[in-house]
């Protein structure tokens, strides 16, 4: 283990050619290197060998599903999962002495990476009004301060309770129960910023907010689309599933503005061919699409399929499915036939021939799956794009059969489960009625605030208290300056956290750090050792049990913190057995089993090896939407445009990054080393803009409110990005995303397709990265 960095390291940018393959031996080396930098070989071994195993730790890195019990590798994790788990299992500690040494203002000037590298939080801390430093506080006093502030509010709606996707099902359930028994539905979550558009579009068209495929479906598909996602860095275990699909004969079409390494070739380090061979080619066809052109692409494909049916009636479309299970086909078809090729080619940057070749692949395939991620959902037209993907799948009956379906690929490990547990500001009456019946209180019915609206409410003084269950809200949210101002305007901000991040440093008058157990750690309560449960991206619910001793004896579990806070705040008012919940998580699961559909016999079923699979109505022939049938939709065409001299920016992660936390300044797949303040631009665009590789520029976003949003001092890197587009890392570029720039219908911030100009930095002294 190495000591944490004392000062920010100064490194300069070097650029190498982008990699043409992902994983392989370097992935193993990098994973072990980072793990051993953070912790001991023994702890690394304990973590990695129990990770994603039956009875072991669920990797918090992503929500990708595990193979069935008995089919898992001894090492069932990826490079980024290994880094993430040992980033949490680090033996570095942040103590009271650290906070005496570093003022809040000092910490606010540090980089995300530096803050994370300091190690695990070990005891509750408070920053009192007017104080420059955090100082220790007892748990009782800390929760008393928070409860006192909550009880002093003029209305429960002046509080906001944010959840990050790392939280377990049990913690999420307890949080929403506390918030609703306190009297508010203000339950924003990180879903608001990642797959909200998927949830809205799928619920409307198919009657389920979740994907419809399993790992087995991927293995047995004929054709898989990977649209707006980067599996090599963001969910690397997906590559194993894709490899198996390819070995079964599947073909893959990748659609992305960047030719990511993981879309090209995968060297599976668990297979001899991945170590000494060439690995497996992933994409058979790569569509180098412009950001935001995906809606036009699927509209064009749908038009081509309709025309193919006209040419060969009865051979292209699945009329049995369309007639028996869908509605709205005629209106959709009429609309789809009017799609203009000029618009399609402008929006996508692709030629008609390229799209027709994909049409041919579709016609040769009986079983098609479409996977997508934030490259789709974070556009203004994210919801229509997902709807159009559903249209595409329905035309040939690629829903509800083995080897077919819709696959939104989620990032946070339990982001799906937290929603299932009721973390949503607009929960339906059926759920609230069930809460009322079970617990005997009257939950508030008025919809609460999501992430964007919470920031607005904080800024306007309508919200006074902000509590976050995990996460790094300040860095995950858009319009960083506005978000930070909003947080600073709160009377109290509190974070239940494992490690230090910027959200602790940009805080209200009073701020609390409530340190908690991580996934890797043993959780012992009054009734003995506990486990928690999670739901992955494919609706499998299973256990997670840590093995390591806690980072500090002062740590409480997330559930314990929330239950104690509820007791401090509500006393016996609501008649909810918070103490029992804290002592025995089985008692929480018993309540969940009576409230959340699909969780009957929760305790018994979840402890079976591999847990249980929540049914998916679509795969049962049921469409639980308003019309009771799968819904074809008409979606207006969108041609994303940037004015002359501007580019369409997409924000993205580096390979050495987990959500808002960069582990290093490197992004080796893209050939970026030593700096994160880079903007990747097509060489033709660099030349057209009169710039050169290595030039320093400010990124300035253009938005209708006329406010100048500027991300300073980025270096231009020549990169095979789609022409007219640019890419740069978040959270550094979140400052460019206007708070009011949200996706239609879903209110999801638009972190893709931001119109920016690149202003050369001339005389100004370059500020150091922050």
């Amino acid at each position, binding site marked *: 283990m190495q000591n944490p960095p004392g000062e920010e390291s100064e490194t300069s940018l070097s650029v190498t050619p982008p990699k043409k393959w992902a994983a392989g031996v370097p992935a193993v080396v990098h994973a072990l290197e980072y793990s051993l930098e953070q912790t001991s070989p023994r702890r690394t071994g304990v973590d990695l060998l129990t990770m994603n195993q039956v009875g072991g730790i669920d990797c918090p890195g992503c929500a990708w599903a595990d193979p069935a019990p008995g089919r898992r590798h001894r090492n069932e994790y990826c490079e980024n999962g290994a880094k993430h788990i040992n980033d949490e299992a680090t033996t570095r500690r942040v103590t009271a002495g650290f906070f005496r040494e570093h003022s809040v203002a000092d910490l606010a000037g540090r980089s995300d990476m530096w803050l994370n590298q300091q190690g695990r939080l070990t005891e509750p801390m408070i920053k009192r009004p007017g104080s420059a430093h955090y100082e220790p506080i007892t748990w009782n006093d800390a929760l008393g301060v928070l409860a006192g502030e909550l009880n002093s509010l003029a209305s429960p709606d002046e509080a906001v309770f944010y959840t990050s996707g790392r939280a377990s099902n049990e913690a999420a359930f307890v949080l929403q129960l506390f918030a609703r028994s306190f009297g508010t539905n203000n339950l924003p979550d990180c879903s608001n910023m990642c797959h909200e558009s*998927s*949830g809205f579009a799928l619920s409307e068209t198919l009657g389920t907010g979740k994907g419809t495929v399993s790992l087995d479906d991927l293995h*047995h598909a004929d054709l898989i689309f990977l649209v707006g996602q980067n599996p090599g860095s963001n969910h690397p275990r997906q590559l194993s599933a894709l490899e198996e699909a390819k070995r079964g004969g599947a073909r893959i079409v990748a659609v992305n503005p960047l030719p990511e390494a993981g879309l090209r070739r995968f060297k599976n380090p668990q297979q001899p061919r991945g170590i000494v061979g060439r690995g497996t080619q992933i994409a058979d066809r790569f569509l180098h699409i412009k950001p935001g052109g995906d809606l036009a692409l699927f509209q064009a494909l749908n038009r081509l399929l309709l025309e193919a049916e006209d040419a060969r009636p009865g051979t292209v479309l699945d009329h049995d499915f369309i007639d028996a299970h869908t509605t709205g086909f005629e209106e959709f078809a009429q609309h789809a036939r009017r799609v203009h090729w000029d618009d399609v080619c402008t929006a996508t940057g692709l030629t008609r021939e390229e799209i027709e070749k994909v049409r041919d692949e579709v016609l040769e395939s009986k079983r098609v799956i479409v996977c997508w991620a934030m490259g789709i959902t974070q556009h203004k037209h994210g919801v229509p794009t997902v709807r159009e993907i559903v249209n595409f799948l329905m035309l040939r009956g690629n829903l509800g059969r*083995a080897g077919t379906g819709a696959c939104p690929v989620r990032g946070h490990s339990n982001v799906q489960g937290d929603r*299932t547990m009721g973390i949503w500001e607009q929960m339906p009456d059926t759920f609230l009625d069930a809460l009322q019946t079970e617990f005997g209180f009257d939950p508030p019915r008025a919809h609460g605030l999501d992430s964007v609206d919470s920031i607005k409410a904080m800024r306007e003084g309508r919200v006074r208290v902000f509590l976050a269950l995990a996460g790094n809200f300040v860095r995950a949210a858009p319009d960083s300056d506005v978000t930070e101002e909003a947080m600073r305007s709160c009377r109290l901000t509190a974070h239940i956290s494992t490690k230090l991040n910027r959200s602790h440093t940009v805080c209200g008058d009073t701020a609390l750090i409530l340190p908690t157990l991580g996934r890797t750690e043993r959780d012992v309560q009054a009734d003995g050792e506990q486990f928690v449960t999670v739901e992955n991206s494919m609706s499998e619910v299973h256990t997670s049990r840590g093995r390591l001793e806690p980072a500090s004896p002062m740590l409480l579990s997330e559930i314990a913190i929330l239950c104690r806070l509820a007791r401090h705040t509500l006393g016996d008012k609501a008649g909810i057995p918070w103490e029992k919940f804290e002592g025995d998580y089985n008692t929480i699961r018993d309540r969940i089993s009576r409230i959340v559909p*699909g969780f009957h016999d929760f305790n018994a079923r979840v402890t079976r090896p591999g847990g249980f699979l929540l049914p998916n*109505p679509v795969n*049962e022939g*049921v469409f*639980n939407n308003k019309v009771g049938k799968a819904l074809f939709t008409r979606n207006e065409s969108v041609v994303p445009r940037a004015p002359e001299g501007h580019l369409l920016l997409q924000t993205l992660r580096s390979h050495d990054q987990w959500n808002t936390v960069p582990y290093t300044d490197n992004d080796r797949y893209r050939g970026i080393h030593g700096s994160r303040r880079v903007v990747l631009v097509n060489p033709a665009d660099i030349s057209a803009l009169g710039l050169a590789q290595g030039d320093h520029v400010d990124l300035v976003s253009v938005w209708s409110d006329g406010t100048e949003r500027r991300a300073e001092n980025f270096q231009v890197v020549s990169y095979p990005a789609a022409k007219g587009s640019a890419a740069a890392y978040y959270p550094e570029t979140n400052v460019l995303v206007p708070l009011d720039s949200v996706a239609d219908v879903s209110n999801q911030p638009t972190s893709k397709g931001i119109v920016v100009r690149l202003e050369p930095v001339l005389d100004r002294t370059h500020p150091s990265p922050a």
Partner: protein
Amino acid sequence: MAQQKDGLRAAPRTPGTRTGGDGGTRRRPLRERHVDQTVEVAVPVRTAYNQWTQFKSFPRFSAVVRDVEQVRPTVTAWTIGYGRLHRRFAVEILEQDPDAYLAWRGLEQRPWHRGEVEFRPTGFAGTAITVRMRLEPRGAAKILTRSSWAARLTTRLVHGELMRFKEFMEGLGQEGGAWRGTIRNGRVQHDRPEPPRSRVAQWPVG
């Protein structure tokens, strides 16, 4: 092709060939069969069919089925084996008509197989169960299954399994559960607006 029949007076019938939309029976008779085995079970058709749909209970009577995982109504994952040798493969049900017929196909590329099972009433409130299978293995297995020895072995295996099902079913006398849904072209045709299994969270998941 090997054929064999056990028990009494099975009602002779060629697999149906009616076609229709999602609402009608659509059988896909196996013209080329490597296995065609019939057994008569002394329980009514409904009882025999219902028990057959309880795939997870197959290890209770089978000599080779170790575990069955019901992935969804149309997809099951089977683990079969002798001794320490195991193989897991996924199977998709393509067509299913209560009390009458069920057709499936293996989802694995190697080896590939498809099959059907038919339930017919007999004169004494019994049921004739016919299993037909077609195997299309690839690679080395392809050469092996060309031999009459391999065909005989498979036939004997299926025959043995059917006899064990008969013994199991007649011993129980009644089914231990039922799935009464219909499947067309690999897709469930629901008969109720909200079957119990579909009752899951319907709110959007971000």
